[in-house]
């Protein structure tokens, strides 16, 4: 599998999130305080662009070489507990670190090396979830 295109795409993403200050703790604070439109504009226009692109891909009936349609796998809803509870835990962490997983990595590269601690901690969090998974409601 050719990996270079994914590397280049990641590079573009990294440049955009730094230059648009999406990785900034201050911007996340501003967003959760409803003090500016910037972050909402970024998220809303990203969702709109992705939604239109998905519709175009679906209408055009694009497929892989083996015939599998290009699409995102639907997430099973189950009781929904995992999305609400997991989401709220994630959100609390997002407010405290001021960064979600992509920006954590970008911040280490963009001059906040101590964020490496948050990445190691996030790995610990994911590992703990994996360990407790059979006992958690989903």
């Amino acid at each position: 599998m050719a990996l270079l295109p994914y590397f280049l795409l990641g590079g573009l993403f990294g440049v955009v999130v730094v230059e648009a200050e999406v990785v900034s703790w201050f911007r996340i604070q501003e967003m959760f305080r409803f003090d500016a439109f910037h972050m909402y504009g970024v998220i809303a226009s990203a969702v709109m662009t992705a939604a239109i692109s998905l519709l175009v891909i679906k209408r055009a009936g694009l497929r892989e070489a083996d015939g599998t349609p290009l699409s995102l796998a639907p997430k099973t809803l189950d009781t929904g507990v995992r999305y609400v509870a997991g989401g709220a835990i994630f959100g609390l962490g997002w407010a405290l670190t001021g960064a979600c997983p992509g920006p954590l990595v970008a911040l280490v590269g963009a001059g906040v090396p101590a964020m490496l601690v948050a990445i190691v901690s996030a790995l610990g969090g994911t590992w703990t979830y994996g360990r407790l998974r059979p006992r958690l409601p989903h």
Partner: protein
Amino acid sequence: MFTHPLPWYVAGPLIGLMVPAMLLLGNKPFGISSNLRHLCAALAPCRIEFFSHDWKRLGSWNLTFLLGIFVGAVTASRFAPPLIVAVSPQTMTALHQLGLHDLTGLAPREIFGWASLLTIQGFASMVVGGFLVGFGAAYAGGCTSGHAIAGLADRQPASLLAVGGFFAGGLAGTHFVLPLLLR
């Protein structure tokens, strides 16, 4: 010379285009937090079922994307670093009132430095916050990229629930937990 920030109407669509780009490249779903799972599988699977997948086969493309993010961020901050994030005056005032003095850089130096790790604010923000991000993203089956962008764009009910959770947790963290930590 380039002014910061890159406007939302440029940044947002470029981020949104990651979703079709990954589908077109290899029918892959845009979602960054899966990498945390792949890295756990690579580093410490410990016979846990959640980490028993073939991370090299399933995750190489995404780990490569993550590496690209790092290199992109290094490049951006070298050539056009956002030195001062010009947030709204209300946010500035609120942060001053919480006791933060240095509002330069991408994150407050008073909290996010090696020296702050052993302070309550630093420990809670980096160690506890990071843990919650990793735990919550795995539990919710996705983070801001997989749920708030790809999942919402695909109109998945699970993602709407997750994004509701993200905001509920984020608002609670910002308005209740952070004031306790900083004061």
